[in-house]
């Protein structure tokens, strides 16, 4: 045996299997990142998440200031408080990032997502789908004799709930935009 008394077959002597004792409670945060609207900027942000093993639950991006060439990326991510702090710090040091805001901690915020759901069915199931859509204030944006396409906006969990109800009624396909979010108030 080696002087380290390491058992045969053990892998615990790797330097990389050790994590410091930070809190391990996972939190969900929505981050708003203002970036230069230039080629490759999204790849930089996504590359940071994949390269360092962070989670992305949802990501939206679009230009918000044409004259200033700025885009806003909204990222919903999960992680321990230490990981969330790291994500913000790592985003902040990307040269094309102007600003990082944590909408989960900086005050009350509103989150909205748009989704389109295609539901196919006939008879009673079709009527039921329409009835539930009305309750959820979803609009019918396309209709055939055998299908509807619903458009719904709301917080992500509202869309989840709607999709769950549509599933037994013939949900065929769903497209979601991902979360857009703003802080409340001025």
């Amino acid at each position: 045996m080696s002087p380290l008394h390491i058992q045969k077959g053990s892998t615990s002597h790797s330097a990389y299997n050790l994590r410091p004792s930070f809190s391990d409670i996972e939190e969900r945060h929505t981050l708003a990142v203002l970036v230069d609207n230039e080629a490759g900027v999204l790849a930089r942000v996504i590359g940071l998440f994949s390269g360092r093993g962070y989670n992305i639950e949802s990501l939206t991006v679009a230009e918000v200031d044409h004259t200033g060439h700025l885009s806003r990326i909204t990222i919903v991510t999960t992680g321990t408080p230490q990981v969330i702090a790291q994500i913000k710090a790592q985003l902040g040091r990307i040269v094309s990032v102007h600003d990082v805001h944590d909408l989960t901690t900086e005050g009350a915020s509103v989150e909205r997502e748009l989704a389109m759901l295609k539901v196919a069915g006939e008879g009673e199931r079709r009527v039921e789908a329409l009835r539930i859509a009305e309750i959820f204030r979803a609009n019918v944006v396309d209709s055939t004799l055998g299908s509807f396409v619903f458009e719904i906006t709301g917080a992500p969990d509202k869309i989840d709930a709607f999709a769950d109800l549509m599933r037994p009624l013939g949900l065929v396909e769903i497209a979601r935009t991902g979360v857009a979010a703003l802080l409340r108030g001025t």
Partner: protein
Amino acid sequence: MTREMTGAKMVVQALKDQGVDTVFGYPGGAVLPIYDEVFQQNDIRHILVRHEQGAVHAAEGYARSTGKPGVVLVTSGPGATNAVTGITDALMDSIPIVVLTGQVPTFMIGSDAFQEADTVGITRACTKHNWLVKDTDRLSATIHEAFHVAVNGRPGPVLIDIPKDVQFATGTYTPPKPSASHYQPRVKGDLDSITELVEAMETAKKPVFYTGGGVINSGPAASQLLRELIEATGFPITSTLMGLGAYPASGANWLGMLGMHGLYEANLAMHDCDLMINIGARFDDRITGRSDAFSPNSIKAHVDIDPSSINKVIKTDIPIVGDVAHVLEDILKVWKSRGRKTDAANVKAWHKQIDEWRKVNCLAYRPATSSIKPQHALERLEALTKDRKDRFICTEVGQHQMWAAQYMGFDEPNHWMTSGGLGTMGYGFPSSVGVQIAHPDALVINVAGEASWLMNMQEMGTAVQYRLPVKQFILNNERLGMVRQWQELLHGERYSHSWSEALPDFVKLAEAFGAKGILCDNPADLDDAIAEMLAYDGPVIFDCVVEKHENCFPMIPSGKPHNEMLLGEAETQGVIDSKGSVLV
């Protein structure tokens, strides 16, 4: 002043306006217009390396030894991909490098053209920032911005990819404008946090400074301020591999390097301290060992210009985001204004405790008369060269690197060039080329292992072509020493592929390149052989045949805390207190 010129001319003009005097590069199809401009001027010296990786390491050596950004010029495709290892090395060690790559013409991008590679895609993860310039009018502003980004904030490598048609086309040149960039990282530390740190310093019984490469990157003023603070407070100081030289090794409060192969007294001081002041270091895993047992009873302050370094690995009690020199200046100011207080009695007792640890003499090794011990070789090299103020030491990666850090002393910053974060074998030789280019009359020695050295040995051509008197001091154990050591300690002495078979005759190799070769395998001849190497005005390969199975101690095995160091031949009996007892 704006002027019309071709993109290629713009590159040269922008480099001149940025104060660049040297470029390390290798030509190829996609950079020919730039090379044509380089040919037609005399302000910027181009150093032709023999491999693009060598160009980046040479630029790193240039940058580390001068404090100025290093500049690299390479072609598209393989030119760029060969540079990737060097760029990653510079990223890990925060070295400012500006890499200019050629690219296929814009209208051919995406067509899998000859020598096309997605250079900005490939280097996105290994640069601080990179740009693909598609418009000649944007070229000069982008180059100026690149220099700004490379040297400001936490320094690092940047890359500009320039398609060939952009080099040929004519556009408007704009000279550098200060503060044209939105990238303006914070340099001043928060004064409340600084005051909190000073309060902790005033009452600390067992304080220790733990400094890193950030002090060196911050510039000579940072090292001066650090020295002033250490002398004034009398606190002990240790440093990472990257930070050697910021505080002089001959200084009274110096503990030596810390970390996996750091000194016993330095690591135990880190483990037992009650106040740890981290200045410009990043709690690397080679430093902390087992992080959940790292310095369990200390308040930890962390000064770093990169906010993402704080709380990344180790939880910090007093975080201070700012440039080291600015923060040190404020610490000194606040500490002086509050009456220069320390708990002198307890700090004195702390020094006594450290002296006890020092008695372990952790760098002791069993001397030999029949073969050269690598430690002995470096002790002799140190003794015969330490009086040279213009001595620069580069290293490759492995046992020899750790021995150099342990047995050689650095009294000034920017005189020690080593690959710390990435651990790039093959770094040292091209790096020594870059240092010698920047300091033509200095004594530049690359302490190497034979395996690392062979990884970039093609740069012998560069050294001979430019008559660079670099000394390649190769500790030749015919092994990948560090790999062999780990296999001995951790993998049941199964030495899987860790020996160097079919080595060249280094003396003949040197002569084949037109350089001088020296072989030494007898300890009795060592001093004379080193003197011969130093006296020779030209590149030398010194083949120092050393003991083959020597291990590098002390050592914190991976996954162990600081107080579970392995000591080699050091005398441990009865000196270590109960806390630091689990020693071999």
